[in-house]
């Protein structure tokens, strides 16, 4: 069985974005970058499948500059992926979800993958679109935001998070699955495995190598702006906590009118 895991390098969730005024482009040069946390669940699930069965090969695929290789090595190859494919092309610098999906689909067509695992969204642009667009382009089934997975013969059963519960979904393979927290506990890479990961194959290609042209963006970004400023905090005297609690209830009811 062949599994592809599509991953993305994103700014750490501790990153502060200090915009003073609207700007056409976000300067992300100083950001610390990590593997998208939801992609870690996708990687872990692929590795668990490999450990449970025989003859499973996992390819980690990403789009990005040279700096993504460190993430691929440490968070994908060192925890059990077999090889990596990096698509590096300046034409992708400002690509939108549809363009990214087109290029990843071209890469995924190179081998007959049975499963494509992805995080359910990236924590930078928060789109959650690319895996579903890929599934449609490749004619595969998709199940999104899964929290459990069981593989059968040519089919799979996944639990999918919905409001106040879950759906139990059965899908045919090949399929694209997007992973949510709760699916598994991603392992950490060991130092020896990080060293060994350097020996695993990592191929770098351009869009031309994949025989795909980057399509024009369907969504254009006009500007980035800071979140609306918040007012002063009204501090309630808490010398007598019970009185403070009563005063808080009164303010929420009479002043803020939210209860």
């Amino acid at each position, binding site marked *: 069985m062949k599994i592809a895991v599509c991953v993305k390098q994103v*700014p750490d*969730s*501790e990153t*502060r*974005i200090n915009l003073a005024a609207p700007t056409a482009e976000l300067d992300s040069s100083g950001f610390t970058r990590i593997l998208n946390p*939801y992609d870690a669940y996708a990687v872990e699930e692929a590795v668990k499948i490999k450990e449970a069965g025989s003859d499973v090969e996992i390819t980690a695929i990403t789009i990005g500059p040279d700096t993504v290789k460190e993430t691929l090595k440490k968070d994908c190859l060192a925890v059990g992926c077999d090889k990596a494919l990096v698509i590096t092309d300046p034409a992708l610098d400002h690509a939108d979800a*549809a363009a990214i999906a087109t290029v990843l689909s071209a890469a995924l067509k190179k081998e007959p993958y049975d499963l494509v695992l992805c995080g359910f969204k990236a*924590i930078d642009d*928060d*789109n*959650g*679109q690319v895996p*579903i*667009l890929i599934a*449609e382009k490749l004619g595969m*089934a998709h*199940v999104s*935001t899964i929290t459990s997975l069981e593989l059968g013969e040519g089919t799979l059963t996944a639990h*999918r*998070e*919905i*409001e*106040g*519960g879950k*759906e*139990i*979904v*059965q899908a045919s393979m090949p*399929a694209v699955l997007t992973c949510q*927290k*709760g699916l598994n506990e991603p392992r950490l890479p060991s130092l020896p495995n990080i060293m060994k990961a350097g020996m695993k194959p990592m191929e770098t290609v351009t869009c031309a190598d994949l025989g795909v042209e980057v399509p*024009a963006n*369907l*969504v*254009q970004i*006009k*500007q*980035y*702006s*800071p*979140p609306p400023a*918040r*007012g002063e*905090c*009204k*501090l*309630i005297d*808490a010398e007598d*906590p*019970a009185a*403070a*609690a*009563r005063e*808080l*209830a009164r303010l*929420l*009811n009479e002043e*803020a009118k*939210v*209860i």
Partner: protein
Amino acid sequence: MPNLAVFIEQRDGALKKVAWQMISEARRIADAAGGEVWGVFLGPDAGEATTEAAKYGADKVFAATGDSFAGYNSQTWATALANFCRAHNPDALLVGSTALGKDMGPLVAAKLECACISDAVGLKFDGGLEVRRPVFAGKCFTDVTPTTPVSVVGIRPNAFVMEEKAGAGAAESFDAGIDGVDQKATVQSVESAGGGQIELTEAEVIVSGGRGIKGPENYELIEKLADAMGAAAGASRAVVDAGWVDYSHQVGQTGKTVGPNLYVACGISGAIQHLAGMSSSKCIVAINKDANAPIFKVADYGVVADLFDIVPVLTDEVGKIRG
């Protein structure tokens, strides 16, 4: 003159409120810029959806009915909505950012090869559609424009104010064109988590607990206050990672991004990734022992005190007020 189509979601016949929020906003845009507001419904019976949509200002409600739309199927439902767009050419199809909407919206866009915009919180029409949405879980916002004649736009629940304004609500049907659709994935069953819990992303009020609750046994305090307020119960990542509370309660950049009318943070210091997920809430209350906790920087009301001294009394008081 934009014609805006709004998807009216039903689950087991229950209609999602986000539809009326979207119709209200579409009505405001249409009143200013011209154009029509359309409801689009998939389900066994369109009666209630049509009446309700009219209340909030829908000019027409298009429905495809039948057993195929009793329960959600991604390929069947997305095909039907794509066919609706092909037949009626709305400028945008607005879809609530619910579990169903986030699954189906991109698939509709893929079928139409059109622009797809996720999780929007603002819409403007000035010759063309302009959409505002948070990125980095709300650490900043982007204004984006679709370049295709039709676009699919996901709308976050509670982003828009629901406002009754009578519309014609003319009932029309449309041809879903779903014969022979390869379903590929099917929902076998739906399991409820039980307890009639309110979903975080749809809640108008949220009460969240952080490390200040000291242990899993004390999360009950948070749940009781949430109950008294008619609120959903949330949690910080620290509490979820410690295994005290299920991850489905997590608010933040790696959990749910929320924007309720009221957010009550109890014993939450306000890590940057938590603030990102909740700072668009309309009113924020912080209860924390540490006066220097970052949560007070985004709060409207603050109490510097131990949550164990405040929350039980607050629960009683709120109970009295709400009767």
